[in-house]
């Protein structure tokens, strides 16, 4: 087995499950009208998923740099998509932290879940652009 491919695959597995979770968890919470401890558990899982997304995103670059020996060549559209993905992760982590700390400015649970689902969806759209453009 080639080390770089095995590492890329490992990082991709984390990234794929994280992607499913950041969109699926808020949508499921909205659909099933989660409240109380269940909703709080979903916020924690979503936070974990976004952190996993961030770490695995960095992981792609690290495998390239440390194993292949070069950083990825990405420019223009792909670079823009990467920046939007990073922004989505930052905003989602801030929003989730605010909900878990019960800060008033985070708004209602329903509004927060809609925002989280939106940010996750935008990140997924950008992932496709980043994958196929450079």
């Amino acid at each position, binding site marked *: 087995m080639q080390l770089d491919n095995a590492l890329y695959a490992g990082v991709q597995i984390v990234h794929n499950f994280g992607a499913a979770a950041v969109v699926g968890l808020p949508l499921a919470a909205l659909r099933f009208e989660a409240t109380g401890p269940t909703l709080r558990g979903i916020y924690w899982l979503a936070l974990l998923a976004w952190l996993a997304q961030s770490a695995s995103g960095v992981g792609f670059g690290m495998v390239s740099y440390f194993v292949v020996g*070069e950083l990825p060549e990405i420019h223009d559209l792909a670079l823009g998509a990467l920046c939007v993905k990073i922004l989505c992760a930052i905003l989602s982590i801030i929003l989730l932290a605010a909900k878990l700390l019960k800060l008033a400015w985070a708004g209602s649970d329903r509004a927060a879940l809609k925002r989280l689902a939106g940010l996750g969806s935008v990140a997924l759209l950008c992932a496709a652009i980043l994958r196929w453009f450079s």
Partner: protein
Amino acid sequence: MTCLARTVLTALFISNPWVIQAGAEENLVTISSPADGEKLAAGKTYKVDYEVKEATKAHHVHLFVDGEEVANGHKLKGSFPLGPLKAGERQICISPVNKNHTPVGTRACVAVTVQ
């Protein structure tokens, strides 16, 4: 923190005898057209013909004109439309990359004069 992470990763990857040393030194791609030193006409469209060696780790290629990436292609043997170019000395390069857009061999480059 960054230094620590770098040290750990270096210990894990770079000093690991299994590590695949950077293939970035290998010549994996050749440009058959235009030829190095060829004179091209300004305002006209040409083709860049390239071929990546078989059985390499290259997944696709990136095309650069004067250092700016202008296209990518998923054929390991194919061509890109080139131009129209402005007059002057132009450098055309093709970089073989893996699925993560990371270079896996040296860029093949040709210099052309556009008149």
